[in-house]
């Protein structure tokens, strides 16, 4: 089991563009959470998907949206990119909506120019 996988590893975009990040959960996990980690900061919760629905959302604007597929994989979409969206985006998977069983992926480094 490769654990949680994320793609791409790195991404460079310009302001105003849109980006899609992908996450495959650890085998057997059905819940995916997304976090944004700016330089020098701890991860900040964006949202969680369980049973293909957004179950919890952090303090992020509507430009951040997501999706979960029937195979439990997930996408994070960010529209109208801002310079401040530059960060490491972490995906974490867990069981039945609980974070105490959470495993993290390696992250996608997004740079917005």
């Amino acid at each position, binding site marked *: 089991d490769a654990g949680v996988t994320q793609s791409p590893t790195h991404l460079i975009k310009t302001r105003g563009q849109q980006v899609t990040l992908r996450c495959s959960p650890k085998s057997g996990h059905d819940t995916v959470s997304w976090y944004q980690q700016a330089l020098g900061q701890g991860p900040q919760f964006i949202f*969680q998907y369980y049973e293909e629905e957004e179950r919890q959302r952090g303090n992020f604007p509507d430009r951040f949206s997501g999706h979960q597929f029937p195979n439990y994989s997930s996408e994070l979409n960010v529209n109208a990119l801002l310079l401040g969206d530059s960060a490491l985006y972490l995906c974490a998977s867990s069981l039945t*909506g609980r974070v105490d069983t959470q495993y993290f992926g390696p992250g996608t480094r997004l740079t917005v120019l």
Partner: protein
Amino acid sequence: AQRVTQPEKLLSVFKGAPVELKCNYSYSGSPELFWYVQYSRQRLQLLLRHISRESIKGFTADLNKGETSFHLKKPFAQEEDSAMYYCALTTGFQKLVFGTGTRLLVSP
């Protein structure tokens, strides 16, 4: 609002010295607290959680509700303990709130 504070950005100690990484939280209810660790070029991973009351890699952490603290301790630091450490809390088991992290550097 829930908040986790890690006052030290960097903690530098010598091998064999005791280590204490501080974590304070603000939440009026009963949160569950975690310590996560990120070794160089590795992904973030769970080190320990207060509810399990176990010692992992020689680290322990006690939840002090009176002082709203969850400090991470180890009596004798090893070079391989050098890493980034994050304290986190959850109140409904649906999201984690992280602190800003403390970098532990253990010198020989």
